[in-house]
């Protein structure tokens, strides 16, 4: 019996029709969702999930496929956020134009950084990526004339989007953000699919598996790592711009910290790196969990289960559980690394393989 392979590792044979149909169906369903689901909070959670998907899928191209563990993606996220906000707030450039500028800056800077740091390997690359992101954070913090320093930039308003004099949206509700987020998320998923089913995907994975072997097979390491970084930085910056416009505020301590970088990595690690679905699973696990904690859903649930709201424990839970969402990130990553190093997706696949294997054994008469 051949060992079962994750589909991503298998060579594509003809068009993968079923996944494509599923993807289209999911997209259509999500497209109609706001017609039925009008609660601003529910929409808000969906926007956060889209954001996490965009971030995770973007990081995945560099960290998952190419194996370059950047823990400095806050740099590109922050640049996307800052540049878009500065262009809009100080130069009145509409965000749908500004985002291109900010994305170009992020990609350009990324390639410069990449050309310098990609000769480092393993933990040294990780450390360098952190250092670069910290340098950019410190610049944003100290270059007060341009970035407004620690106070950050507060957006007054987003101009309404009109095409040919017709108003498309005025960005007053969460619905336009929902659709922009959905479109970006779908786009990054499509990009990952495209990478996986092209020469790039083969080369990226070869670099991940063994740099020296890849090099000797005609793969230019610096070039292809930079291509991966450029794709990754492009969409990470776009997600930064999207986030900044949605929240209406940026400052160094929300978009440029090591924590931001770590959270981007965690989305992929928890879901399963180097797979298309991994970041989606990661986002679906992380965002609802941390939102549930933030909004005290869990504390309320515990009260319903009989924990007295007025006891000391109850008071403690009520006051503090809302702050625990980052703690959950920590616990999750420890659990995932120790018990499911290939992420939730890999874990589920492993279980399935095990059960399938058990079922197959008696049939082959090997019991």
């Amino acid at each position: 019996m051949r060992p079962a392979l994750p589909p991503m590792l298998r060579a594509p044979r003809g068009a993968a029709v079923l996944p494509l149909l599923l993807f289209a169906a999911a997209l259509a369903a999500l497209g109609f969702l706001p017609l039925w689901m009008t609660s601003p909070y529910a929409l808000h959670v969906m926007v956060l999930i889209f954001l996490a998907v965009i971030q995770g899928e973007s990081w995945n191209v560099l960290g998952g496929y190419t194996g370059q563990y950047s823990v400095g993606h806050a740099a590109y996220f922050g640049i996307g956020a800052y540049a878009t906000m500065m262009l809009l707030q100080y130069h009145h450039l509409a965000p749908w134009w500004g985002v291109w500028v900010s994305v170009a800056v992020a990609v350009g800077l990324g390639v410069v950084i990449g050309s310098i740091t990609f000769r480092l390997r393993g933990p040294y690359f990780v450390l360098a990526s952190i250092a670069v992101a910290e340098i950019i954070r410190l610049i944003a913090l100290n270059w007060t004339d341009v970035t407004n320093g620690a106070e950050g930039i507060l957006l007054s308003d987003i101009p309404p989007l009109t095409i040919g004099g017709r108003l498309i949206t005025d960005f007053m509700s969460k619905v336009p953000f929902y659709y922009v987020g959905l479109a970006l998320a779908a786009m990054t998923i499509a990009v990952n699919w495209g990478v996986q089913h092209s020469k790039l995907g083969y080369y990226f994975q070869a670099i991940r598996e063994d740099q020296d072997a890849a090099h000797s097979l005609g793969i230019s390491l610096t070039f292809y790592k930079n291509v991966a970084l450029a794709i990754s930085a492009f969409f990470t910056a776009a997600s930064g711009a999207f986030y900044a416009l949605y929240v209406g505020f940026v400052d160094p301590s929300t978009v440029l910290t090591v924590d931001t970088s770590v959270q981007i990595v965690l989305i992929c690690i928890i879901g399963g790196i180097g797979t298309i679905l991994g970041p989606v699973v990661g986002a679906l696990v992380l965002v609802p969990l941390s939102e549930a904690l933030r909004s005290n859903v869990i504390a309320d649930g515990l009260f319903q289960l009989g924990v007295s709201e007025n006891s000391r424990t109850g008071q403690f839970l009520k006051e503090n559980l809302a702050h625990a969402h980052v703690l959950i990130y920590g616990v999750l990553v420890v659990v995932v690394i120790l018990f499911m190093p290939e992420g939730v997706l890999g874990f589920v696949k492993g279980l399935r393989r095990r059960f399938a294997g058990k079922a197959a054994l008696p049939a082959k008469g090997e019991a």
Partner: protein
Amino acid sequence: MIIFVQSLLSGILVGGVYALIGIGLTIIFGVMRVINFAHGDLLMLGMYLTYFFFASMGIDPFLSIVLTAPVMFVLGAFLQKVFINRVLNALPQNQILLTIGLGLVMSNTVMLLFTSDYRILTTSYSSSALHVAGISISTPLLLSFAITVAITAFLYWFLLKTDTGQAIRATAQDRDAAQLMGIDVKRMSVLATGMGTALAATAGALISPTYYIFPQVGSSFTLKAFVVVVLGGMGSIVGATLGGVVVGATESLAAVYISSGLKELVVFVLFLLVLLFRPAGLLGKSRM
């Protein structure tokens, strides 16, 4: 000139504490080849323990090290046995993520228990200073430096002269060879993590009279510890000592001559330059 000497001196004094942080990180790395991203959080725990001993029992922060260090040693040994030991053969990135996760758990647990308020530990000598030839030296900084020197001297003695110390160094040099020679490598790993943790916590205790104490204080020290260790060459204790002093002095001089906001930036640029051009550290190849 006075300003230069003044800032260089206080930089070196602070650098002593950085060296202690770096030595802890480098011992852990040396013995297990694991980069501990929770190092700053261990330091943070040391600060809170010190604060606790001071606030509830009135024990002087420098004296309470004799309590803090052993407690944190045990915690470090526990972390090694339960968590780090399981990823010794995993991909480096998974080791890194595990320690990042542990760090997040520590800092956020402290935040849950004690809120994210800044705490200040004020001793009778917190703001006193010695004045010599126009130069003023902060008393707590001087005291902490003296303790650092004593601990470092003890560490050198321990690693060079005792059997256990030599076993740790042998493990750091070549884990497989050490195992073949009958060294209990597992025990050395537990010891090393315990020591590294105790050193980080000691550094935390030493800076507690002069720094704000809050749950997120660790992350900037984690980064600083990397700089110190990479400057000196990963795994080298002499290198970490030197690296600590270099980072302290660089920060202090950059704060005076460039801008206090940019002092960390200067350090990170230095860090990148060393990573790129002298990846084995300023001292080159030497280990422990």
